[in-house]
């Protein structure tokens, strides 16, 4: 399943340019996130080199930590490390970076790579018991699906304390004596959280979208014997469907009807596609074909967003795929037949 090679061997982990090896037990990690880090974050969210965006695992110093300083644990996805270190400005802590093959805490915990075995291994490899005098590890709460606190205690003597869900709460958590408030323990999944993954959804349908737009262009040339403004009018409903499925569905998720994401996507898609067809009308058969294909696309994209949320479950998603995928495929196929037929009648 995991196609990524191990970071210790053939892979080429992305190095943080501002880590300097110094005398002492661990390299220093800067809390300053540079413009190229921000740029890198944008790049991976558009799907470029996402699985190679990693930091070398191991123990790092942030600030000037001593034997009493807290130990925070995180994953070696560079976007994750950036999100954590920028919140640590002015603090002195140890940061133990686990080798999660460049995957974030939540997803890696689900796979087990952010897990008990790796945590125990890193604690021992860093000789943490010799670096600090206390016996506490602050593990992000979303790592708990992979880490069994009582087993870590038994193997290493360190007590796992689950920190906040969000890196932005680390400072308040530490200031409060390693106590997380109920709000720090909850996943909010507000509109910013929902929208930040929209590029991934759009990139996911880019290739089929190009195929569809190319096919429409060919159909138009066949019908009108020339390339004209009508091609743009034909594109509009499909672009509207991509916008509905990839952007509007995540944004309006709590307010779109049904618990089924495919229905949410189809509803958003129907509204947008209808608007596009009304604004730029064509023949009835072509419009019907276009509507079927475009709404199927929006519905499919809506269904794909299940994987980006914080509240879906496996059994439910499997049920949704089994129930929604056949009608999506049938609608798309029927629509394609109608749209092609319309070019020849």
């Amino acid at each position, binding site marked *: *399943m*995991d*196609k*990524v090679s191990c970071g210790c061997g053939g892979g080429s982990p992305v190095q943080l340019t501002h880590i300097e090896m110094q005398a002492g037990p661990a390299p220093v990690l800067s809390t300053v996130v540079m413009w190229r880090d921000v740029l890198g974050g944008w790049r991976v969210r558009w799907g470029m080199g*996402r*699985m190679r965006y990693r930091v070398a695992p191991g123990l790092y110093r942030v600030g000037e930590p001593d034997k009493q300083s807290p130990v925070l644990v995180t994953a070696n996805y560079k976007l994750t490390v950036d999100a954590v270190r920028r919140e640590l400005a002015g603090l002195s802590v140890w940061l133990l970076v686990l080798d999660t093959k460049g*995957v974030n805490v939540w*997803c890696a*915990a*689900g*796979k087990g790579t952010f897990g008990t075995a790796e945590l125990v291994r890193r604690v021992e490899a860093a000789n943490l018991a010799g670096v600090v005098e206390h016996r506490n590890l602050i593990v992000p*709460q*979303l790592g*708990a*699906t*992979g*880490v*069994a*606190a*009582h087993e870590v205690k038994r193997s290493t003597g360190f007590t796992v304390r*689950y920190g906040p*869900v969000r890196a932005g709460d680390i400072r308040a958590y530490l200031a409060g004596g390693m106590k*997380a408030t*109920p709000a720090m*323990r*909850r*996943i909010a*999944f507000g509109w910013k959280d929902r929208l930040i993954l929209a590029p*991934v959804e759009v990139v*996911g349908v880019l290739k089929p979208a190009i195929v569809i737009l190319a096919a429409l262009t060919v159909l138009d040339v066949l019908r009108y014997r020339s390339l004209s403004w009508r091609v743009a009018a034909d594109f509009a409903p499909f672009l509207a469907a991509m916008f509905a499925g990839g952007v509007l569905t995540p944004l309006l*998720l*709590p307010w779109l009807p049904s*618990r*089924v*994401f495919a229905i949410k996507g189809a509803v958003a898609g129907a509204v947008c596609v209808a608007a596009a067809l009304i604004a730029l009308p064509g023949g009835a058969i072509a419009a019907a074909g276009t509507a079927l294909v475009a709404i199927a696309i929006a519905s499919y994209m809506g*269904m*794909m967003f*299940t*994987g980006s*949320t*914080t*509240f*879906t*479950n*496996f*059994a*439910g*998603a*499997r*049920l*949704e*795929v089994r129930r929604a*995928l056949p009608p999506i495929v049938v609608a798309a196929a029927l629509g394609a037949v109608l749209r092609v037929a319309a070019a020849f009648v």
Partner: protein
Amino acid sequence: MQYLLSGDSLVLDQALCNGCGRCEEVCPHAVYSVVNRKAVVANRGNCMQCGACRMNCPAGAIAVSTGVGCAAAIIGAMRRGDGGGASCDCA
């Protein structure tokens, strides 16, 4: 927000529960509360079946079937002919 079959497979055996409160601590959706040193499932409908509670229950009092709530992973597994093998493989 709630999803299809939310919390469906979650089973808590209160007889085994030692009241440590780890389940309440690790749950990101406030599914548990601890009453009189026993955990109770207070908000089953919010459960996404991630398994953090089961993983961190030292008494083994929790059962829940886990997996990725991700249509892309499920379709990927179906295409490989591996119905049970759905896993995050975004790449």
